[in-house]
């Protein structure tokens, strides 16, 4: 089975082209099923690989590659033909990630059959979705960082296409562009990291690069720079501070897309990249610290920002950013397995929450939670499954989120109690905003009767994926934690620095910590209940009144959006300046100036001509007529022909003598 690993991304790729070009856009087009079939096959291969890896039947890592192209390259002044090879590299983390991506992707595609039913661009939606899945899977399996980068950009463009899917409206195209450009800003770091890797390592192959790092061929400063570049890429793609501004806007896309791309898979790509290149980060304390602090700041800021919005998808978007911060922070403190564990569980429960939110939106046709309320009566399955997802997100035992978050907190405490305190606080915030969302949406009285009356539970094609994800949200944490199955599978991360993970600096009893954090989470849920599980929102609004300044700051997202908009503005002004300089300065100097120079030269030569050359001619005339001629007239006046002949004879003889 493993030898078919290369098919995992290629099957959805083929499907996406088949869907796009295979037939006309019709309501009952069968082509979307091709996408579902392809991803089903990929899932089957991935699960077989995962199972073989877990049971030990398959020795990892597995690598296979093929020549893609070759080019004349040069390293240290020596030209050679560099063979660029593309292929697959399957490690424990890869096997897990493949299964997660395929599974969520399949469920989302099935769910979309219901959610997108009747959309005018139904077929195109499936083509894009398959294309996204293909590039995401390519990113995960590739053994070549350049190919990883290529797929990285392709998931970016799929995200662009899907966020802007309803391009007839004004907001989605804008959000799509914002997402693409913001992530591209981070990608510049990734790009520079790739250049540095090749310049110093002479390869893009992950295994060979790892060997080169292990042998100490790359100086630490270089590794730090590479690490920071990769981190910049991850900041963009995984919506880390300060590049997280694009993710809330990305919610303009269809909700299943938000579930797949902007919650479960693509935004996890940055985390995965850091994990995949962990050997680089592990070799540089600076890079590790940068990862940890980025994650920490992101987790906290996004956690607070999730407290205020009334758009159900924005709450989930901020929550996603915050949880990605948790993962990043875990990786930064040496919690390789913990970070990836949280990535896995989060993929399930956050996809569940988004799909649940999609089910609600599908029923009431609004994202605004103020117009919801009391929906548990109308949509019991959605309510139940979303509650499960929320409990998992809030980290309540024994659901999935508890185990993974617990591992992260433990790792972070070993590194630094301060970071632990911030993350634990964020965990409480998580519990609060999650249940704020649940109570606002499903409990209390209906606030919009019209919408409430028309709300109906979604059909089976949408609820079955919800149920499956709910089951996974319940079981996956416990099952993977059991006997350290997950940690065994992904390993503990290669070559850590002693300081980073070897000996823990601080210790805490895991039981005490788990109890404490869980208790705090329960308190937060209780608070959310008091504030939001009421017939009207007066208590919450009173709080908002009292704390208007902090609310304002949070609603403005700490001004980061404004900052980046200002940056864009500045760039535009600079561009305008360049345009002016080009037309009024460069063109004037070099084109008109050159022309002027030629004109001046021409005028000068004209003047010279007039002044000297022509004057010389005139002068000759003047001399011969007015000077010589006038004096000669003295002779001619007398009219003596003999004298003339005499002068002539003298002149001739003088000439002949002089010769």
């Amino acid at each position, binding site marked *: 089975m493993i030898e078919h690993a290369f098919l995992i991304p290629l099957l959805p790729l083929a499907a996406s082209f088949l869907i796009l070009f295979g037939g006309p856009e019709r309501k009952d087009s069968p082509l979307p099923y091709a996408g579902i079939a392809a991803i089903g096959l990929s899932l089957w291969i991935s699960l077989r690989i995962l199972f073989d890896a877990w049971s030990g039947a398959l020795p990892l890592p597995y690598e296979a590659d093929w020549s*893609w*192209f*070759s*080019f*004349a*390259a*040069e*390293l240290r*002044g*020596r*030209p*050679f*033909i*560099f063979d660029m090879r593309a292929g697959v590299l399957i490690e424990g983390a890869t096997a897990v990630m493949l299964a997660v991506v395929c599974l969520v992707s399949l469920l989302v595609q099935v769910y979309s059959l219901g959610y997108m039913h009747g959309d005018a661009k139904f077929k195109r939606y499936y083509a894009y979705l398959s294309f996204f899945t293909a590039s995401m899977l390519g990113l995960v399996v590739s053994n070549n960082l*350049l190919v990883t*980068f*290529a*797929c990285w*950009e*392709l998931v970016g*463009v799929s995200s*662009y296409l899907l966020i*802007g899917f309803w*391009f*007839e*409206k*004004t907001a*989605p*195209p*804008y959000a799509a*562009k914002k997402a*693409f*450009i913001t992530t*591209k*800003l981070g990608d*510049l770091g990734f*790009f*520079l990291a*790739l*250049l*540095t890797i*090749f*310049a110093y390592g002479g390869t893009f192959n992950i295994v060979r690069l790892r060997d080169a790092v292990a042998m100490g061929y790359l100086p630490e400063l270089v590794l730090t720079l590479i690490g920071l570049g990769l981190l910049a890429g991850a900041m963009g793609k995984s919506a880390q501070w300060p590049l997280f501004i694009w993710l809330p806007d990305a919610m303009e896309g269809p909700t299943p897309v938000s579930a797949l791309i902007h919650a479960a898979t693509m935004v996890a790509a940055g985390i995965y990249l850091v994990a995949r290149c962990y050997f680089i980060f592990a070799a540089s304390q600076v890079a590790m610290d940068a990862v940890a602090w980025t994650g920490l700041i992101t987790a906290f800021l996004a956690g607070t920002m999730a407290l205020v919005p009334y758009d159900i998808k924005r709450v989930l978007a901020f929550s996603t950013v915050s949880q990605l911060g948790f993962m990043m922070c875990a990786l930064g403190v040496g919690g390789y397995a913990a970070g990836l564990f949280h990535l896995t569980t989060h993929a399930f429960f956050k996809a569940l929450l988004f799909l649940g939110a999609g089910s609600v939106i599908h029923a009431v046709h609004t994202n605004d939670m103020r117009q919801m309320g009391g929906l548990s009566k109308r949509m019991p399955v959605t309510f139940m499954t979303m509650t499960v997802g929320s409990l998992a997100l809030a980290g309540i035992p024994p659901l999935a989120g508890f185990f993974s978050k617990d591992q992260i907190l433990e790792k972070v405490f070993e590194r630094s109690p301060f970071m632990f305190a911030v993350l634990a606080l964020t965990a409480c915030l998580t519990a609060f905003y999650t249940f704020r969302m649940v109570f606002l949406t499903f409990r209390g009285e209906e606030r919009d009767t019209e919408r409430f009356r028309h709300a109906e539970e979604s059909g089976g094609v949408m609820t079955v994926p919800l149920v499956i994800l709910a089951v996974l949200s319940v079981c996956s944490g416990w099952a993977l934690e059991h006997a350290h199955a997950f940690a065994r599978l992904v390993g503990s991360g290669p070559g850590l620095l002693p300081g980073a993970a070897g000996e823990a600096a601080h210790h805490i009893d895991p039981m005490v910590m788990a109890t404490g954090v869980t208790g705090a989470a329960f308190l937060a849920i209780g608070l959310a209940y008091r504030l939001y599980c009421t017939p009207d929102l007066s208590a919450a609004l009173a709080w908002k009144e009292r704390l208007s300044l902090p609310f304002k700051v949070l609603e403005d997202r700490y001004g980061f959006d404004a900052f980046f908009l200002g940056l864009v503005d500045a*760039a*535009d002004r*600079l*561009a*305008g300046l*360049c*345009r002016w300089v*080009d*037309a009024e300065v*460069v*063109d004037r*100097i*070099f*084109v008109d100036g*050159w*022309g002027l120079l030629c004109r001046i030269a021409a005028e000068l030569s004209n003047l010279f001509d007039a002044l000297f050359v022509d004057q010389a001619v005139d002068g000759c005339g003047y001399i011969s007529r007015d000077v010589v001629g006038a004096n000669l007239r003295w002779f001619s006046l007398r009219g003596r022909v003999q004298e003339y002949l005499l002068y002539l004879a003298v002149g001739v003889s003088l000439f002949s003598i002089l010769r």
Partner: protein
Amino acid sequence: MIHLLSLITFIPLVGALVVLCLPKDGRRPIEVVGLLATALPLVLSCWLYAAFDCSDAAGATMQFVERHAWIPSMNVQYYLGVDGLSGPLVILTALMSLIAMIASLGIKERFKEYVFWFLVLEVGMLGVFESLDFFLFYVFWELTLVPMYFLIGVWGGPQKEYAAIKFFLYTLTGSVFMLLAILALYFQADPHTFDMVALMKIHGSLSLKFQIIVFLGFYLGFAVKVPAFPFHTWLPLAHVEAPTAISVILAAVLLKMGVYGIMRVSYTMLPLGFEWFLPILVMIAVINIVYGALCAMAQTDMKKMVAYSSINHMGYCLLAIAGCSATGFSGSLLQMVNHGIITGALFLLVGVIYDRAHTRDITVFGGLATRVPVYAGFMSLACFASLGLPGLAGFVSEFLCFLGAFTRWKYHTAVAVVGILVTAAFFLRMIEKVFLGPLNNRWADLSDMNARELVSVVPLAILMVALGIWPKWALGMMNATMMHMAGLFK
């Protein structure tokens, strides 16, 4: 001997002469001759591609060589040949000429003269890349100027006369300095020769001062063509005023003559002068990239925007050359080919909308994707290719360009990558403003692309994807020569 290169070069000339003899009123025969005279060289250049020896041993030699004495008293020869550097450009020229000829079929007035000048232009372009004798090279180089002058000046936009004279005089000025440089080399060589292959071997006897002066002479000639900052300002105007097909040729082929010249002449014949100039060249490249992209971002005229994006993309080529490594040379050459295909397509597509809307102002459109989906699809594809999306042609070449420069110019390269971001920004903004959002009702009855437009764009679209996925097809032809070139002065 089949005289393949002579056939490729002079079939368009034969076509031009035949067109001259045809009656002015019969449009169809002129079309047929024009298409045949551009299609045959493409067929033959495909043959050239198939017969081209890509082995490592062939890297140092010229292939398909034709060599005859021409003016013996001055030691001038008729000397043609291609290697991995010029071969891909010959094929590109033949391809883009056919595409542009197809796009030209929409020309309404004075069609006969148009085809005549167009075919003469093709002769000049092909000849520049093939000739290995400076005299011949210069003849072909200048041969491109006159047809271009008429093609812009007669069939262009509102400011055509001004644009044409500006283009003509400006590039001619560059050529004059190049001519002086050629003569300097000619008289320096012993025995006096215009033979470029022979001149590549005499650099050992040239002093640094001589090389610098001669280098600067050549550089002025080439830089105007590239166009390199600050000699680039003729380009946007010429592009805006030129008819669509001529913009395509201008961007796809004419600009390449400058970069080709730097690689073929400046680097191989004057290594010391080249080396001396590198720190300046890399600065110019970075300015081209960043400044060109910023200028493009500020434009509201689509065609001007694409024109400035060309300045940005040719900056990548210069940056790669400044890296002075095998990687850089490969990147630069591949970028030339890809830029030709992508920007050619972009200009064609801009022409499509201009023909219908009679405006190119980005701000007056909106929501066209619902109205002209096929057009929107091709335009987006070309834009994404141009901004370097993986899977499309621009990505690999851009990456190689940066890779080639990075080893030597780390900081410059790090600054230059900002150009990638700006490029993405202005292309996406253009797509958003023109195609996305609610449909602007003013354009409610716009028609989608017609058959002629599709025939000219589809091959380029296919090539963008093909070369993006499988760059081997282009790189295979270049590798051996690039290896040889990089190893020349090691």
